[in-house]
């Protein structure tokens, strides 16, 4: 296939499937207890310079607790896959933990507006950016998951999104039609937040999958954060519900309300006032530094952050909001 056009954006990760295979050849398949604290998981599995994947979509089932911990441990020079990355990107930008990003959607918090701190960080010139579409990132993860170096797709063509991406265009050998070829994306480490997992890492979640299955399959190291750890027998009783099998998983961290202040389907809804507070605090650098100190750096763990922001009573209210029973009498 002759390359017809080439985007000018960087490809931050090596798309060579044999290197990925060689990595997975050495990864342990032993079915052992992988539970640990989130602090230990981040310390053990996130190295400075790693390329990071974050599951979920736009503050929905997003591993926010993991983002806090990465910032708290002051990780540096990470790469980041931003596919509808909203509050997670806001946190990672606040900590300035990444310096290169595959950008499909970031900076914004959807209908809530733009994050001042994400915006400023991207406008600072300190971050190297490649542009993509959301589906392009999910196809790139899918390519890595399939063990192929690229996949063809038909969006991005003809646009600046293509021109500033790391994609190439080539004619299809079967039809002659022009395709965008996107390189496999295999994060060094990813975090996915789920409802339930067993101690080995078999994991399942409710609601939309977004691109989490592709992300889990594509990632070299994978940390599962979960609302609750369930007995393996529970998983084994209904194995068709398992979406991520244990052998892909390096650590299992029980973090109740780990997607707060985002939504966890069938569990709790987003804390909109608190997300607004984040966006308001961002406007003044000094006040924001203080806010981060109180909400992340000065918290010993995510539980302390939740306690600071309303604790169990707040979680109960958000559960009622999720089930839309908050208008009803107690």
């Amino acid at each position, binding site marked *: 296939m002759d390359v017809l056009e080439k985007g000018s954006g960087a490809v931050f990760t090596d798309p060579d499937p044999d290197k990925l295979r060689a990595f997975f050849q050495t990864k342990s398949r032993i079915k052992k207890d992988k539970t640990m604290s989130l602090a230990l998981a981040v310390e053990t599995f996130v190295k400075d310079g790693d390329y990071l994947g974050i599951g979920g979509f736009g503050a*929905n089932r997003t591993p926010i607790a993991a983002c806090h911990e990465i910032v708290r441990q002051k990780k540096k020079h990470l790469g980041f896959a931003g596919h509808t990355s909203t509050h997670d990107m806001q946190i990672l930008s606040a900590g300035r933990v990444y310096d290169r990003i595959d950008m499909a959607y970031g900076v914004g918090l959807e209908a809530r507006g733009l994050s001042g701190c994400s915006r400023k960080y991207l406008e600072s010139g300190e971050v190297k950016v490649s542009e993509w579409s959301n589906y392009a990132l999910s196809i790139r993860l899918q390519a890595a998951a399939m063990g192929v170096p690229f996949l063809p797709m038909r969006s991005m063509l*003809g646009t600046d999104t293509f021109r500033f991406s790391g994609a190439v265009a080539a004619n299809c050998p079967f039809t002659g039609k022009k395709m965008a070829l996107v390189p496999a994306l295999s994060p060094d480490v990813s975090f996915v937040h789920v409802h339930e997992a067993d101690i080995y890492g078999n994991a399942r979640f409710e609601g939309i999958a977004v691109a989490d299955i592709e992300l889990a399959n594509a990632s070299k190291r994978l940390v599962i954060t979960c609302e609750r750890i369930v007995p393996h027998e529970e998983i084994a009783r209904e194995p068709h519900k398992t979406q991520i099998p244990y052998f892909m998983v390096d650590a299992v961290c029980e973090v109740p309300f780990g997607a707060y202040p985002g939504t966890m389907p069938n569990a709790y809804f987003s804390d909109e006032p608190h997300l607004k507070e984040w966006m308001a605090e961002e406007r003044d650098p000094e006040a924001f530094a203080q806010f981060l100190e109180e909400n992340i750096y000065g918290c010993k763990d995510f539980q302390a952050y939740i306690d600071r922001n309303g604790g169990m009573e707040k979680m109960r209210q958000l559960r009622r909001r*999720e089930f839309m029973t908050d208008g009803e009498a107690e």
Partner: protein
Amino acid sequence: MTDYNQMEMMIVIAARELENGATVGVGTGAPCAAAMLAQKTASPDLVIMFEAGGISPDLPEMPISVGDSRTFCKASMAGSMSTIMSSCARGFVDYTFLGGAQIDMYGNLNSTTIGDWESPKVRLPGSGGANDFASFCWKMMVMTPQDKRRFVEKLDFLTTPGWLEGGDSRKNSGLPENAGPHKIITNMAVMDFEPESKRMRVISLNPGYTFEDVQDNCGFALLRLEDLPVTPAPTREELSILRTQVDPGRVVIGR
């Protein structure tokens, strides 16, 4: 005459475009309101899809996020981005509504940067799923206020494809055939695209506006039909359903 605001007008016009049985990919805000209104009026079997995976939910309220729980509440399926986008890529999805900070005469959209990409004045969110939806969905529509700063001669960044440079340029780009921008709905007018040049063309004027009003609030020369009809105003019934069943919290129509 029934009283209504400009957002209500745009939502009602957009809803009328969505026929029963069609599929539509939407985001949050006005497009979602238009799809919900269509469902509650002429198109009960309109299939609403959200890019994060929700398929044909019974939306209990306006979603805040394209992936929040409401987007798959009492839905046919809580799928994945791939479920939705691959369906779009295979030609299953008829309509989508998109927006951006800038739009040009071919319906191309910018949601990436204001100013130079290398050193932007404002960094915006980027494509998200917009580029994919616009590439794949048969008919792409835009609802946006008529404003010179939005309707520009040249985009700062072409995030999402319209008819690209007009004529056959979209076809030659490799994008799927026969799909592209369909209608642009503003507070002042409804536009389509002239079939040969693929340039934006005014096809009806909203009540109270002249062609000159539209042109004065547009940064490029608009084509027009010789005889411009008046866009039918929202009916009492449409407004009542929009206000009481679609957006009682006035999240969108109160903007």
